[in-house]
């Protein structure tokens, strides 16, 4: 899960990483007051988790008090990928000599954290094309040994960073790694890390992604998840430990396992159709999480037809059936439901479901997807 920039910066600040002074504004008048306290020039930064903030005009340098309210209002009017801007971070604008990139990323194939350093930091270099030719150096970290000074030095010498700056870089790299470990992050990124005329490093932008599977031990982050950003479905998904993905189509899908999610999506796309939602209930889902997943699909006004594709291994089909019947018995909107239920305890699961008249049964992924798309097209005509 991604944290907003202001949340990431508050964590980095607490960890002792040098940042320019900043404060959060929810309207233009506040932005002006904060700027007066900080002193001009300031940068106004739209707070959003969507990409393309800079291109859309969501990051602006303000030289004086005459333009700040107008420009703040322009930023508050921005909508990025259907998400309106609700907060602006008002930050002291620094002039700097050089921009670096410093991050701890996760190498999933090797299963290690990696310290990544580059001389090509900064918003202007975010485009993949310009980043491509820049020197980027990586150092895998053995999580049981921790990040060592020699590893940081190794990267700095490869980048040709002046030894007078090594201490600052080392301090920041260790603190970024500490944040990565402490908050169960999958990514802690400073882009850019700037060098000022006074030879000091400051973190201008920060990104922290937190591992969703570790949230149970990250209570301090519960409040960090922006309630305005995540909808009801995302909250339900978090509560019942299922994956919820929203798409702009009309078919609501429930599957067990990521492979089956990809397979079902593949087949829908092959038929030129989009799902409205894809819910992955994972292996071994309980009847409660299956009931609440079906509830999400029944209550979603965009969902016209429901596809339930379960091949149970750890997921027991009898438990799945109980969950489905539980949701169906609650007087929720009625929609056609196409079911493929196979695997562990499928006989007893199917027996329970046969009694319900809303359900139609299929034997394969191919068959159920074809039927749902066929039904939808028949309905449209």
């Amino acid at each position: 899960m991604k944290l907003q920039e202001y949340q990431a910066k508050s964590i980095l600040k607490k960890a002792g990483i040098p940042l320019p002074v900043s404060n959060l504004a929810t309207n233009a008048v506040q932005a002006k007051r904060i700027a007066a306290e900080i002193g001009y020039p300031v940068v106004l930064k739209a707070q959003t988790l969507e990409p393309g903030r800079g291109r859309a005009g969501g990051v602006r340098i303000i030289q004086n008090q005459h333009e700040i309210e107008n420009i703040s209002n322009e930023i508050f009017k921005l909508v990025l990928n259907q998400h309106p801007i609700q907060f602006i971070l008002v930050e002291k604008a620094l002039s700097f000599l050089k921009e670096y990139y410093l991050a701890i990323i996760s190498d999933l194939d090797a299963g290690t954290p990696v310290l990544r350093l580059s001389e090509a930091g900064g918003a202007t270099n975010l485009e993949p094309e310009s980043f491509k030719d820049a020197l980027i150096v990586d150092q895998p970290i053995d999580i049981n040994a921790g990040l060592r000074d020699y590893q940081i030095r190794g990267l700095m010498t490869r980048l040709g960073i002046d030894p007078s700056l090594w201490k600052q870089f080392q301090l920041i790299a260790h603190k970024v790694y500490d944040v990565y470990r402490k908050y169960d992050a999958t990514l802690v990124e400073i882009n850019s890390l700037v060098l000022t005329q006074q030879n000091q490093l400051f973190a201008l932008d920060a990104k922290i992604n937190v591992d969703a599977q570790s949230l149970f031990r990250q209570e301090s982050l519960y409040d960090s998840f922006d309630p305005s950003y995540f909808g009801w479905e995302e909250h339900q998904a978090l509560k019942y430990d299922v994956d919820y993905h929203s798409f702009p189509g009309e078919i609501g899908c429930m599957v067990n396992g990521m492979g089956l999610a990809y397979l079902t999506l593949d087949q829908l796309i092959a038929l030129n159709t989009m799902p409205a939602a894809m819910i992955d209930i994972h292996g071994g889902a309980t009847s409660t999480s299956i009931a609440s997943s079906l509830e999400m699909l029944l209550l979603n006004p965009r969902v016209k037809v429901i596809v339930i594709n379960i091949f149970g291994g750890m997921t027991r089909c009898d438990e799945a059936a109980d969950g489905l019947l539980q949701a169906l018995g609650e007087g929720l909107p009625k929609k056609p439901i196409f079911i493929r239920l196979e695997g562990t305890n499928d006989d007893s699961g199917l027996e329970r479901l046969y009694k319900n008249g809303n359900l139609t049964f299929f034997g394969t992924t191919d068959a159920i997807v074809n039927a749902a798309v066929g039904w939808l097209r028949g309905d449209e005509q």
Partner: protein
Amino acid sequence: MSILVSAESRIMVQGITGRRGRFHALQMLKAGSPIVGGISPGKGGGWCSEGSLPVFDTVRDCVEATNADVSVIFVPPHSTADAILESIDSGVKTIISITGSIPLQDMMIVKSALRNSNSILVGPNSPGVLLPGIASIGIFPHDIAIQGNISVVSRSGTLCYEVVNTLKQEGIGISTAVGLGDDPIIGIDFLTCLELFEADPHTDQIVLIGGPGGDSELKAATYIMEKMTKPVIAYLVGENLATSILRPFFSRSGSLSLEALGSKTDALKDAGVRMAGKLSDIPALIKR
């Protein structure tokens, strides 16, 4: 006869008194799997699975009493790393974690420990290892495959079921089916599994099921090109995603990854792998 486990393996179940462990231990026994005992801290000395299996407090106790050399893990996600490390520490050869959704950094700690050990980890989030007619280790649905000489390796559990079941419909039998696991960080990858299949006298052909994310299929392609003598058929799920109309909607979608599979498809094709365009194409690609 098989890879990773065999009829001679001595298997223990970590988390045998939990809801899932209890249910699936019994299923495994019914499938004829050589289970010798279970672990449940605090419940050592008892018996489970209708009184047929002894329960131990620690993995070491179980290994000493039963000579167990394979462990199957059903404990909850937050204690899975601990369970894996306990098995590594007790010298267990093959560790299969059925439990998934393990905290990412827990798995990094496990990977580091594995590098300094002789243990092999399958999973987490693996359906297990299936040897039709001999044993079913993990959570494979009952009766989805018949015995034969085709081996299957898949990252996804449900797709592994789909494939062995599709082959069964066509009368094609399986030697070993391995689910590598759906979690972001896993133990053995396609490459290791292919090496084991290449050396296995009871595997004639291999079906590999891959998908978006990571470079494991690319490493497999290099190995197939340079070393492998047995024919490989591959099916990559998620093929339509990268070029699809869904593209703009993937930026927020947590675990689904949107990645062009083109380079993986090309690399496998170059290595002489026969590519299945869809699931139902697989049986026809197998050489009879």
